[in-house]
């Protein structure tokens, strides 16, 4: 198996006023295709920074990152947006659905930016919503859905453009434990189907469900319990 995500000597520093904050300090790691990996650390550990670098929302200050073989370092905004659109499916803690759009339109959003014609967008989004068990909630707006259903819409949205990596940031953090458990079941099922999943969490018991745990603290990754 080849590494779909590769980081070599990656650092990310922020300048806040006069202070320089080392959010990530010389991180190197590789994540295999079709793996289910947890990045685990307390808040302020740098795991969000790591997630945004893997998710192409940001570029490193130094070092190189390759996503599915493409180096993000020298990319401009347009190229990064293109890469996010094609390679990454995001699932956020607070679902991040657009309140004015119904489930179908929310799930179809990545296809809009991929330039897919409207009819095909609808078809693919509907297929994906059925896949996550929301067949009878297509026309509901987020405010009409439960937390678990919202997260399922978000997962459908993450999967709709068939990305190389599913990147989930505390996806069960805003859910009660039984709903959270259902969502985890869904992730496991997706993993078994062959999706590469990167899971960012502070919760050790959730991390233990994953195939591999990358602990992170103070901007450095610790021992790798793979």
């Amino acid at each position, binding site marked *: 198996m080849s590494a779909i995500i590769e980081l070599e000597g990656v650092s990310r520093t922020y300048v806040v006023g006069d202070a320089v904050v080392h959010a990530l300090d010389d991180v190197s790691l590789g994540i295999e295709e079709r793996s289910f990996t947890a990045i685990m650390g307390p808040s302020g550990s740098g795991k969000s920074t790591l997630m945004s670098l893997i998710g192409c*929302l940001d570029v490193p200050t130094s070092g190189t990152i390759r996503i599915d073989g493409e180096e993000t370092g020298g990319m401009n*905004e*347009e190229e990064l947006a*293109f890469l996010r659109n094609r390679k990454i499916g995001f699932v956020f803690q607070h679902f*991040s659905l657009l309140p004015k759009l119904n489930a179908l339109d929310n799930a179809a959003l990545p296809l809009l*930016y991929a330039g897919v014609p409207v009819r095909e967008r609808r078809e693919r989004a509907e297929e994906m919503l059925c896949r996550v068990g929301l067949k009878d909630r297509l026309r509901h707006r987020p405010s009409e859905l439960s937390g678990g259903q919202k997260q399922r819409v978000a997962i459908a*949205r993450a999967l709709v453009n068939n990305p190389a990596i599913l990147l989930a940031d505390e996806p069960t953090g805003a859910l009660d434990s039984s709903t959270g458990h259902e969502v985890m079941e869904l992730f496991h099922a997706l993993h078994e189907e062959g999706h590469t999943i990167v899971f960012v969490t502070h919760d050790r018991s959730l991390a233990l469900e994953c195939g591999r745990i990358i602990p992170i603290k103070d901007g450095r990754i610790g021992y790798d319990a793979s």
Partner: protein
Amino acid sequence: MMLRENIRMAFSSMTGNRLRTFLSLLGIMIGVASVVTILNLGKSASESISSSFNAGGLDTVSIMPRGSARETMIFTEEFAYTLMAEIEGIKEVLPVVSSYANIRNGQEIAESVSVQGVTSGFFASNSLSPSSGELFGAAENINRRQVVVLGSELAEELFPSGNAVGRYISIFRNQAKSFLVVGVLEERDASMGNSYNDSAFMPYNTYTQRFRRTDQVGTYVAKIYEDFDATSVAEEIESYLNEIAGSDYYRIFSPATIKEMADSVTSTFSSFLAAIAAISLVVGGIGIMNIMLVSVVERTGEIGIRKALGADPRAIRSQFLVESVTLSLSGGLIGLITGTLLSVAAVHVTGWSLHISMAAIIVSMLFSGAIGIFFGWYPAAKAARLAPMEALARE
């Protein structure tokens, strides 16, 4: 494809907070409504001025000699031919002589009536036609017949019970002379100093023989060819007359020149007002910019989500630009409708006929669109520039 989606999103966010949308559009609505109203009224006013010029008047230039000085001795009947020879574009020159006289029919007396001696072509060139009886022709002129055509008001004054045609009236000048009424003119909109309605007309030669033994002509009515500009022919006549007589010894009356002046005053005035109203369009644009800036801040999270899902800066920018253009065009459209309704109401009050200015419609819609782009550009660029991570963090 993206545009349709953007317009849909724009309407959904516009209708999300109706009161706020309405208030932010108020400026542009008032601006467009005032520009449209002013231009419509300007056009209606100028059309009503031109329609008040009599139909036959715009292609005529009247020359009236003044005083009895030696210089005016040149204004004889022959001068009509001189004028035609000297100035290009004159189709014919009709001499008119006139003076005031009292006219009587039995007990009815009309005092100080303008009695005019005209050739038969006078009626045609001023588009005058009879409401009863008929107009005199060349034969009556040559034979110096004592016939008269009365203006509508004069006929009513002298013949309150009607039936003027075929009756005789007395015209006093030094002594009473009896004239046969052969026709009564149709009533004419009394404008631009024309007083056909209360005048009496007799053949030119009859007049010169019976009333005033002189060669001098009272007025020359020069008829201008259709393919010549009456205003510039009037100017040529003026400079010719200045040369041979001097500006003190004649007056010139050119409806086309007056119309041109009136048009230019109306259009200058309405452009001036429209320019002032356009300032409120700019103020309206600032209103749009303000609401768009607020919107970008409020929707930072949404922008972050869209960026995370693959929207590039260009997609975000066009979303917000389409939104601001949709806003400003909606405001413009409402303003256009309001302005048109206001014009209808104003025209109803002034009694003009309504003329919608197409230019006002096109210009105001283009201007609204341009305002949307201009004042939406900065907020849209600001949205496009947001760093995805920071935008997401503010969700």
